[in-house]
């Protein structure tokens, strides 16, 4: 479990330094695999049957559908690269990890497993990605990262959410990604780029 957490965090941190869209999607897929594994481990630990279903769902939706659709998009965006100040994002990601672990230590000392802190850190890094990246795909990747963080959070606190809620969340995120992919297509079609910073020019 600890290993998985470390891998997750490492993936997220690397994600802040990636400029190629396809690499980012790849790392995202890896991350989702880890989350699915974590789910499975939790299921083994607690013996709850619905955790297995959740793990399967994670694998199918996050690893399968989402990564596949993003991958399809990135194949069309050969000339798009992320241009951002990676050093600053990297530093901020490190700070986010430190802050979240400190926060968990301070507020919930009895819960101070690695998972909780990692989950919060993951959420914040995802948010940072959304803020700091101008490529639409990278923002989607940030969103999924955040989602993964939240999922981990639920996992670590409640030992697994009720199945119906998890299915709701999956459906939600699927729809969100589909919409975002369509939007990215439109963006490419209208502006010939998926760099969202050009949207600022729409401001009246």
């Amino acid at each position, binding site marked *: 479990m600890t290993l998985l957490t470390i891998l997750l965090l490492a993936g997220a941190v690397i994600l802040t330094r990636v400029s190629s869209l396809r690499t980012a999607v790849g790392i995202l897929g890896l991350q989702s695999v880890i989350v699915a594994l974590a789910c499975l481990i939790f299921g083994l630990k607690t013996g709850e049957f619905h955790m297995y279903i959740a793990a399967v769902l994670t694998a199918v939706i996050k690893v399968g559908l989402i990564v596949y659709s993003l991958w399809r998009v990135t194949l069309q965006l050969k000339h798009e690269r992320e241009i951002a100040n990676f050093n600053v994002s990297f530093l901020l990601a490190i700070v986010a990890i430190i802050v979240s672990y400190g926060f968990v230590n301070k507020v919930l000392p009895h819960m101070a497993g690695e998972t909780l802190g990692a989950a919060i850190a993951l959420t*914040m890094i995802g948010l940072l990605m959304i803020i700091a990246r101008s490529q639409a795909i990278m923002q989607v990747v940030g969103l999924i990262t955040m989602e993964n963080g939240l999922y981990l959070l639920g996992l670590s606190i409640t030992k697994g959410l009720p199945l119906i809620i998890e299915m709701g969340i999956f459906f939600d995120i699927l729809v969100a990604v589909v919409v975002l992919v369509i939007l990215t297509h439109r963006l490419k079609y209208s502006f010939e780029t998926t760099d969202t910073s050009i949207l600022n020019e729409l*401001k009246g």
Partner: protein
Amino acid sequence: MTENIYLVMLLLFSAGIILPILTSGSPKITNILAHGLAVLGCLAIVACSVEVFMTGGVTFTYAMGLPVGSLIIRIDNLSAFFLLALGVVGTAASIYALGYSREYYKQRLGLMAALYNCFILSMALVLTVSQVAYFLIAWELMTVVSFFLVNHEYEKTANTRAAYKYILMTTLGTVFITTAFLILTMTVHSLDFQMFKGASLTSTMRNIVFFCALLGFGTKAGVIPLHIWLPEAHPAAPSHVSALMSGIMIKTAIYGMCRFFLEFLGVGPAWWGEVVLFLAIISSVLGVLYALMQNDLKRLLAYSSVENIGIILLGIGAGMVFMSNNQPVLAGLAFAAGLFHLFNHAVFKSLLFLGAGSVLYSTHTKNIEDLGGLIKKMPYTAVFFLTGAAAISALPTLNGFVSEWLTYQSLFYLPQAVTGILPRLGSVLLIALLGLTGALAANCFVKAFGVTFLAKPRSKHAEQAKEVPATMLTGMGLLSLMCFALGVWPQGMLKLLQGVLSQFAGLEVSTLFNHQWYAAAFNIPQANGVIAMPVVVGMLVLGLIAAVLVYNFNGKPKNVEGETWTCGIIPNARMEYTATGFAQPVRRAYKAFLRTKDTVTADKSLNPYHGVKMKMTVGISYLIDVWLYRPVKKGILFLVNRVKPLQSGNLQHYIGYVLLVTVVILILGVRW
């Protein structure tokens, strides 16, 4: 019985709201259905109020299944009095609307008719609901519905601006009203109005509630300096709605003040009354002064509403001073004066708005400089408008005179009730200023009627005017009759007011008036004035008979037609005195309050020597705007410009703000 009538009333208006939307196919059917139902509903309101006056107040409660408690409808005599005004004016306006709505057959008539029914219903609810939460809901419903009505002709930008100003100001007022109610609610732990009576508040809290109620309701009533929405919103609405807005809606604010000042707060310190008097006299003098300067007929009437709200508040303020001075009889007189004027104003102001609507209907212009000569084209409308104009100028044998007389009477005793040389002088000046108001009002309505209806038409619009349909005339005729009836025989209304005011502690009205068939005498120690309108009527009638006799003493005269003398030229409409010209002496004399800027520009392009076209523009700046609202506006703009860079329009920045706030909250949460 009352409850049944009330429910029927609710039913009628609900049908009136729903049906026009269903019958959007044929505007004719919509018109007849919706306004017919409104007439019936208003008659039900009148019946309800009469029933309450006959059999006493009623209370009924409905559990609504909402978390804010059950709905309490309580109709006492005060509510019934306001309901009566609403019913009478509403009936007339709805009959009028049957004809007037033809203007709107192609302009979203169904929507307007539904909103109109909803508007009357919301006012009826405001006047009867006796529970804080539902009162506020009804109050806001009234505001929102009237906002949509003001904005009905949104094709004109001015209307939309007026509507937004209106909603902004009244929402501000609602904040104060809500605060006042919350303080009371927290003190007595109840939402029922009845529990507020004699709530034990500290004096600071009482003062806060007083000011909140005054500011909150004052905004709706259009008291200067909170009036700025009124002269723009009232002209923007369709005319029958303007009539209801000016006639009744702003009076619901007075209803709220009466509830607070008479019932909830009880007898307060004298300075409360003095504050009210101060605002009242400013409203009446400035209101009528600005009214005189207007050339837009409906705007003129709207400003005159500000004036009349001032006169109503003069009565109420004087009553509050008398109450705190422990003079219940005089307090009763003053409140009776205020409420009487309220009813009168409801009648004649709606009449005038309906008259202005008729002018608009047949000429399609509100600018009185383009009108003239309508008395020959629209003789009945002219008579009705003249009745309203005379009534609002407080001319004898019409209702306005009676209530102004009562107001003068109550102000007359004011210097005895206040102590100190300055308040005494101030209260003496009140009478002089009320006299000034009366004279300015007369001036204003001579101008309004004279320029609109008399002499020759000043434009094509006015030349082609036709008399309006019978339904519109019926509506106006009804109100004109009310003006005469209340003026000739005010004892009935005074008796009603005795019933309304007798329920309040601090007022003593049971022995105030000594009713005879021809007069109502004040039973006030040392002074025994009499309101004997039949006597005044008799004098005038005898005088008229004498005049006719004298005139025809030498047989009937021969009448020869001869052109008006204009130094030998054939007169045309351009030689007539204009509205701007008529108001010019006052404009010049009251420069200090109007800050006029008259500019004359000569167009010499045609010919440098003669035949020069002159154009005069008159600019008036409104003191309250200049001194109060503009600095506030500037301040807000300044602040907003400072904050503006935050609003980058970039979504990512906004998400960043969210993250920042989250982190800050987390940090604060663990108190690092």
